């Protein structure tokens, strides 16, 4: 019988929309409360305070050495759950008992500072993640080796390529000797080869008795790494069991989802995804002149990101990642100058405060028919890939057949993309040697 690593009982977390102020300014609050007092005095009415339950009465146990995936749509409470388990924010009700040292990897490069060297950052980040100085010294060479940054170890990380930065940052976390590792969608970055390396590292650590809690939208990856999954829907535990069956349950849910209007608008700035620099306001999918989540295969698809810059002077880049229905990453794109088919004069420019809209267009006849989702990422520094806001799998859409490319073949086209490519056939004259051989 394995021992318990995490025991969660009746866990709930509420966010009061009234107290998370639209403006964190004293004057505004004083004014608001004065207004409220006057209103109450005159009409005797109480100000309604909206409460959002990010988690509702969640129970589960995780045994030592288990690897458990947490799945659910955006806003289902996955991140809140991880934050509570990592002790970053307190629950509203309920109790969690954690046995063992927790290491949480909610971000790649926790505590990294661009001005410090690779060596300094290893010590800093590992200490922040709870590692003893002696232990760091002991594992130091392994970390450097895993990340493959030997020659640059005494260079400030701001001079690293984004790949090197990510590798080093992940390597530190991978070697933190915690009993329980909590990982939040961090493998979406980095190249495939390094991703594989990380996954095998995680699998190795679970076989050594480490407990793993893993949030990801890459369902194929989850099924591979985790033996068990927990599905969260609107803050409640909907399913809990072997990965395959829970993932299936989730995908059926996704199909019938009601969020597929092709538009996602955060009307209330308090709940919108934001950082001190920028706030997301809306995401839309346009095709054939409509805002829609059903796209014809032979039409252009335009993704639109609306956002508000809250602090002027920060250079921003927009990036979109495209995923197939089973969570495979199809592509990543960004409005970097060198990666743009047209020109976007705002890319990487120091924005003033205000509202902006960035669009990205996929050509017609590009994606195969099927369902897809996008992640939206706002970066402040293209070089190190400094992420301001990342909303994984924020929106899904379907590509529909229209009869295009169907004049001859009517079976299923294999693959995730279905472009029209240039094909040509010409008669040619074979070389003389062949000719003479065939004539005898």
């Amino acid at each position, binding site marked *: 019988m394995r021992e318990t690593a995490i025991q969660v009982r009746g866990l709930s977390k509420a966010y009061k929309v009234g107290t998370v102020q639209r403006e*964190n300014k004293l004057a505004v609050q004083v004014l608001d409360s004065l207004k409220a007092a006057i209103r109450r005095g005159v009409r005797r009415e109480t100000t309604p305070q909206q409460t959002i339950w990010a988690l509702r009465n969640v129970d589960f146990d995780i045994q030592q050495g288990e690897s458990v995936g947490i799945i659910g749509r955006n806003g289902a409470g996955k991140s809140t759950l991880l934050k509570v388990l990592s002790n970053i924010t307190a629950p509203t009700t309920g*109790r969690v008992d954690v046995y063992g040292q927790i290491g949480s990897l909610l971000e790649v490069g926790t505590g990294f500072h661009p*001005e410090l060297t690779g060596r300094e950052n290893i010590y800093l980040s590992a*200490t*922040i993640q709870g590692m003893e100085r002696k232990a760091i010294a002991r594992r130091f060479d392994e970390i450097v080796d895993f990340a493959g940054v030997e020659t640059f170890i005494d260079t400030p990380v701001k001079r690293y390529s984004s790949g090197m930065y990510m590798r080093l940052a992940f390597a530190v976390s991978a070697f933190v000797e915690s009993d329980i590792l909590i990982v939040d969608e961090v493998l979406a970055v980095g190249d495939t080869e390094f991703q594989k390396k990380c996954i095998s590292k995680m699998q190795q650590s679970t076989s050594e008795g480490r407990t793993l809690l893993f949030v990801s939208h890459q369902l194929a990856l989850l099924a591979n790494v985790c033996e068990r999954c927990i599905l969260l829907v609107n803050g409640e535990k909907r399913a809990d069991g072997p990965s395959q069956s829970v993932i299936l349950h989730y995908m059926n849910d996704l199909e019938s989802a009601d969020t597929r209007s092709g538009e996602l608008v955060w009307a209330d700035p308090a709940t919108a995804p934001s950082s001190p620099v920028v706030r997301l306001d809306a995401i839309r999918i346009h095709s054939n002149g409509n805002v829609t989540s059903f796209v014809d295969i032979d039409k252009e698809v335009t993704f639109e990101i609306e956002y508000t810059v809250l602090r002027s002077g920060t250079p921003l880049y927009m990036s979109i990642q495209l995923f197939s229905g089973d969570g495979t990453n199809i592509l990543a794109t960004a409005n970097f100058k060198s990666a743009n088919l047209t020109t976007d004069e705002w890319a990487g420019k120091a924005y003033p405060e205000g509202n902006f809209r960035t669009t990205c267009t996929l050509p017609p006849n590009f994606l195969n028919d099927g369902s897809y989702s996008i992640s939206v990422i706002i970066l402040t520094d293209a070089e190190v890939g400094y992420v301001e806001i990342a909303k994984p799998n924020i929106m899904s859409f379907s590509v529909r057949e229209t009869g295009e490319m169907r004049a001859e073949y009517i079976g299923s086209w294999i693959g995730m993309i279905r472009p029209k490519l240039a094909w040509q056939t010409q008669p040619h004259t074979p070389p003389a040697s062949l000719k003479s051989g065939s004539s005898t």
Partner: protein
Amino acid sequence: MTSKKHTVIEPYHRLFDIRLGEVWDYRSLLLMLAWREISIRYKQTLLGILWVVIQPVANIIIFSAIFGVLLRAPSEGYPYVVYLFPAMIIWRLMGDGISRGSLSLTSNVRLIEKVYFPRLVIVIANILAVMVDFLFALLVLLVVMIIYGVGLTWNLLLIPLYTVLALFIILTVCVWLAPLNIRYRDISHILPFLLQISMYVSPVFYPITLIPESLRWVYSLNPMTTVIQGFRWCLLGGSSPPDLIPAVIGLLITGGFLVFGLAFFKRSEYTFVDEI
């Protein structure tokens, strides 16, 4: 169960909860964060660590010229520069400590949102980082005193006492202002203004003897007055020492604020992240 560390995560329910021991458990992180603050401050600067000395010295030259030469402020028989210097560096320690400590939570939002540790660690680390500037300035001060031929006395041995008292004042202010600044960013606007006022209502530029006799007792309740006067007295030996009774009363009141402040800080810590 095994000997594994057991953590309970619960809603906030205790009325009075400080848990300072936890900060001690995280001392290696504390030192690491302090080191980070110090080492990034002067990276990619031409003069590097020299700035630690240049800044206070430049300040003291300017203020000496204005208050000592132009306004001829009294200085209890010492050359004005020598009289101003100790007060200036201990005031700077308090001023910089308070402003860095109070803003430390908001300037480390990324860290706070992503990993757990007692948040007081970040505040203390920022305060400790300021100590380095102070120690360098203290060295310069000793050199200046030797140049001006001011004799060193046994009072010097009390420097650590007044330095600790200064840190105690800084921490008291920070445990209140740092959590408040998360909720109300106004703090960061008010703070420089408050610090400036505190400099003029403390005996930095002038001796306490300039204050009318009837007000001197009340004036001495200010713990900053106690620390500035005491620190100057440690170094110069002949300037007026703090007035014991109001000094002790002032410090006891500060201690009360610190205890309640620590509880307030712990309480706020539970939901910092939701309010950022």
